[in-house]
C-alpha cells in the first residue's frame, strides 16, 4: 500500500528566510505523525503547503501514491485532507451548526446537519451543542467544533496545528482518545507541536524540524526527552534552576475580598478574591482562558480601578483606587499578554517603547522627552537580557516574538519593580527564549521581589512557581503549595467551578 502522504524535497523561501529546506517524509494510513519543532522552525509553513493554502517553490507531494499537480485547499478537501487551524476559522455571531454548514458543499439543511453533528460528536466523544452560538463557547469547545467540522467530511488525513495550547489537561486526554480512535479507523494524523510530552504519549513517529530542515526522524516513545529537545533546539536545554528562597515577613502584595461585576455579557464577574504574595516568591494563577484572568489582571494592574481602596494592597498600602500609572509609580510592574499593541507599539523603535513605562526614570523634562536617556535605557535592556536586535533603533514589530518578549520583560525588570505581574510570559515564544524568561522571573523573585504569573500552561507554572492559585469561573482557589500539588488535581480545580463543563458532557 502506498503511503497516505509522501513529501519529497519540499522547498519554500521567503525574502531573507528559508522556511522549508528540502523536506521529505511520509505518513502511512492510520499513523499519528508528529512534526516537532520550535516556533519559527517552519512547521506551520509546511502544513500550509501540504494543505495547499500556500505553494512550495519546489518539491513533490503525493497522496495515496498519486502526485498532486495543481494544489489548493479545494484539491485537499477533494482528497480528504482536512486541517484544524491554530487560530480557529469560526464565526462568533452564528451558531455551531451554521458554522459547519458554511464549510459543507451541499445546500443548507440545518436540522439534518444538526443530527449529523450529534451523531459524530457522540461517536468520537466530542460533546457539542449544534445550536449554541460560537461566542458562548470556550476555546476547548471551539476546537471540538473545528474537529467535528473536519470529521463530517470523512478525512483521510487530518492536520492539527498546536491543538492543545487552549485545553485543560483533562480536555487534552479526551482529544488524544479521539485521535487514537480516528487513527485506528485508518485516518492518518499530522500532529504539529512543540510539546515533547504530548508527542511522546500520542505519536507513532516524529519528524523534527529546526531552522527549516529535518534534523531527525525518531520513534518518540523510544527516544528520550532530552534527545528530542536536542534535535529541536540544537543544544542541551538549560534546566531552569529554582534556588531556595527567603520569604519576606509581610506580604508585598495583597488582594482582599476583591469583587468586580461583569461589565457586560462577555466578561466574567470576580467573586470575593483573596490572595497574598510575599517578597522572594513566585505565585502562579492557573486556569483555562476566560475564567476571569483578564479581569483580575486588569484589576491588579490598575487598568480597572476599584472603588474600595482596600481591595488591593501594595506593601500594606491601599491602592485599588489608583490608576495604572499611579500604581507603577509605587513600584508595581505589569507585563500584559499581548506583546504587540499593549506591551509594545509595533511600528515604534525599541527606545520609544522603553519610554512607555521607563519615562519615570528621569527621561522627561517639562513634558519633553530626553531621547538619549531612552536610547541608553533600551541599550542596557538589550545587553542585560540578551535581546537579539540591532540596537535601540530597531522597530518593535521587526523582532521575533521571543526577542520582543525578552525586551518587554527586561524593560520591566530593569525598572526594579517591587511587585511584578506577568500575564502569559511565554506565549508564542520559542523554547530557548521561554526558558530564559522563566529563569529571569525566578531570579527576580530570589532578589526579594514578589512575582505573580498568570498562565494557561500548567507545566510552566509548575516549573517556575512556589505557590499556585487556580482560577475558575471568577473565583480563586485556596493557595496551593507546588511541592504537594500534582497536575491532575490542578486540572480538576480548573474545571470544577464551571458547571457548564459537567453539563456539556451529558449532551447528546
Amino acid at each position, binding site marked *: 500500500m502506498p503511503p497516505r502522504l509522501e513529501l519529497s524535497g519540499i522547498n519554500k523561501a521567503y525574502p531573507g528566510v528559508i522556511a522549508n529546506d528540502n523536506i521529505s517524509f511520509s505518513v502511512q494510513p492510520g499513523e499519528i505523525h508528529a512534526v516537532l519543532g520550535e516556533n519559527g522552525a517552519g512547521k506551520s509553513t509546511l502544513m500550509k503547503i501540504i494543505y495547499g493554502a500556500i505553494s512550495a517553490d519546489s518539491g513533490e507531494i503525493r497522496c495515496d501514491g498519486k502526485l498532486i499537480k495543481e494544489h489548493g485547499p479545494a484539491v485537499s478537501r477533494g482528497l480528504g485532507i482536512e486541517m484544524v487551524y491554530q487560530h480557529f476559522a469560526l464565526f462568533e455571531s*452564528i451558531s455551531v451548526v451554521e458554522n459547519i454548514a*458554511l464549510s459543507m458543499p451541499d445546500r443548507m439543511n440545518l436540522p439534518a446537519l444538526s443530527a449529523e453533528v450529534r451523531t459524530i460528536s457522540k461517536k468520537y466523544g466530542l460533546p457539542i451543542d449544534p445550536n449554541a452560538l460560537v461566542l458562548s463557547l470556550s476555546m476547548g469547545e471551539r476546537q471540538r467544533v473545528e474537529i467535528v467540522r473536519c470529521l463530517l467530511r470523512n478525512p483521510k488525513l487530518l492536520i492539527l496545528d498546536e491543538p492543545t495550547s487552549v485545553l485543560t489537561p483533562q480536555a487534552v486526554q479526551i482529544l488524544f482518545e479521539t485521535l487514537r480512535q480516528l487513527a485506528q479507523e485508518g485516518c492518518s494524523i499530522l500532529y504539529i507541536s512543540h510539546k515533547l510530552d504530548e508527542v511522546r504519549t500520542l505519536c507513532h513517529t516524529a519528524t523534527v524540524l529546526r531552522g527549516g530542515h529535518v534534523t531527525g526522524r525518531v520513534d518518540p516513545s523510544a527516544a528520550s526527552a532530552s534527545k528530542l529537545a536536542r534535535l529541536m533546539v540544537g543544544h542541551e536545554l538549560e534546566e531552569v534552576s529554582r534556588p531556595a528562597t527567603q520569604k519576606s515577613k509581610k506580604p508585598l502584595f495583597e488582594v482582599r475580598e476583591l469583587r468586580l461585576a461583569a461589565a*457586560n455579557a462577555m466578561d466574567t464577574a470576580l467573586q470575593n478574591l483573596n490572595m497574598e504574595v510575599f517578597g522572594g516568591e513566585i505565585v502562579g494563577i492557573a486556569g483555562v482562558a476566560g475564567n476571569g484572568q483578564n479581569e483580575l489582571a486588569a484589576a491588579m494592574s490598575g487598568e480597572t480601578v476599584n472603588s474600595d481602596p482596600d481591595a488591593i494592597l501594595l506593601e500594606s498600602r491601599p491602592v485599588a483606587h489608583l490608576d495604572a500609572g499611579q500604581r507603577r509609580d509605587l513600584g508595581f510592574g505589569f507585563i500584559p499578554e499581548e506583546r504587540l499593541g499593549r506591551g509594545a507599539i509595533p511600528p515604534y523603535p525599541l527606545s520609544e517603547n522603553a519610554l512607555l513605562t521607563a519615562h519615570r526614570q528621569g527621561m522627561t523634562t517639562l513634558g519633553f522627552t530626553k531621547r538619549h536617556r531612552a536610547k541608553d535605557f533600551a541599550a542596557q535592556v538589550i545587553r542585560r537580557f540578551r535581546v537579539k536586535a540591532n540596537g535601540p533603533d530597531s522597530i518593535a514589530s521587526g523582532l521575533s516574538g521571543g526577542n520582543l518578549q525578552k525586551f518587554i520583560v527586561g524593560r520591566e525588570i530593569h525598572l526594579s519593580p517591587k511587585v511584578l505581574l506577568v500575564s502569559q510570559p511565554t506565549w508564542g515564544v520559542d523554547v530557548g527564549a521561554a526558558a530564559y524568561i522563566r529563569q529571569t522571573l525566578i531570579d527576580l523573585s530570589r532578589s526579594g521581589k514578589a512575582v505573580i504569573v498568570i498562565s494557561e500552561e500548567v507545566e510552566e507554572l509548575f516549573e517556575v512557581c512556589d505557590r499556585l492559585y487556580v482560577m475558575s469561573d471568577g473565583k480563586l482557589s485556596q493557595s496551593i503549595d507546588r511541592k504537594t500539588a500534582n497536575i491532575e488535581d490542578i486540572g480538576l480545580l480548573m474545571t470544577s467551578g464551571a458547571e457548564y463543563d459537567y453539563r456539556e458532557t451529558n449532551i447528546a
Partner: protein
Amino acid sequence: MDLFISIFTATVIAATPLIFAALGELIVEKSGVLNLGIEGMMLMGAVFGVWAHFSGMPMTLAILIAIVAGALSSLVFGILALTFMANQYAAGLALAIFGGGVSAFIGRGFGSTPVDAVQPIKIPWLSDLPFLGPLLFQFDPLVYLSLILFVAVSWFLYKSKAGLALRAIGESPESAHAVGYPVIMIRYVAVLFGGAMAGLGGAYLSLVYTPLWVENMTAGRGWIALALVVFAAWRPIRVLLGAWLFGGMTILQLQGQAIGLKIPTELLSALPYIATIVVLVLISRNRMAMVLDFPASLAKPFRPSS
C-alpha cells in the same frame, strides 16, 4: 380622518426612497464594507431616470436605467475600496461628492421640467374599500416593491446560505477566506446591490415623489439612509420601521406649520441624526447586540494572504 390618511400615506411615500437606499446599504455593511457614497449614487439614479424618461423611454425602462446608473457609480467605489484597498471612508465620501457633481452636470438641460410621474395603481376591489382603500391600497407600485424587497432582504440574510455566508464575511473575512469563500467577489456583489438600491431610491425621488430633476434634489436623504442602518442596529425590520419614523419626521417638518406645530423645522430635520447617535451610544454599551448584529469587519480592508 382625512388628515390621518393624508399624513399616513405621505409618511409611507416619504419613507420609500429611504427604505430602498437603506436596505441596499444594509447588505453592503453586512458584508463588512462601508459605502458612504449613498447620496451620490441616489443622485446618479435620479438624474439618469429623468434622462431616460425625457429620451422617451417607458417608465419601467427609465427606472431600470436609474438602477444601473446607481450600480455603476457604486462600482467606482468598489474598485477603489475593494481592489485597491483604499480607505473606505475616503472612497465613499469621494463617491458622494462625485455623484453630486456628475449628476448636476448631466441634469443641466433638464431645467425644472416636470416629469409624468408614476401613478398610483388601482387594485380591483381593495382600492375601493372605505378607509382601508385610500390608506393602504392606493400607492404607486414602487411602494409595494419596497415592501417586497424588505421581505426578500430579510429572507436572504437570515434564511439562505448565501446570506449566512455574507454575514460571516462581514464578521471575519479572514475566516471566510480560510473556509474557501471568495471574499472580494462577494463584497463586490454586495456593493453593486447597494448601488442599485440607491439608484432605485433616487429614481423614486425624481420620477415619483417630486417629480422633476433639481440639482441636489436628494437633500441629505442618502445620509439619512446611512444613519438609518446604524439606527436599525443592522436589522432589516428596524430599517423598515426606522424609515417610516424618519419619513414621518420629514412630513412633520412639511406639515408642522400647517397644523400649528411650534417646533423649529431645523430641529426636526436634525432629529434623525440625533436619534442615530443616541442609538449608537446605546448599542455600543451592549456588547452582545454588537457581536450578533454588528458586522465586526466593517470598513476594514481585507487583504487575502498568499
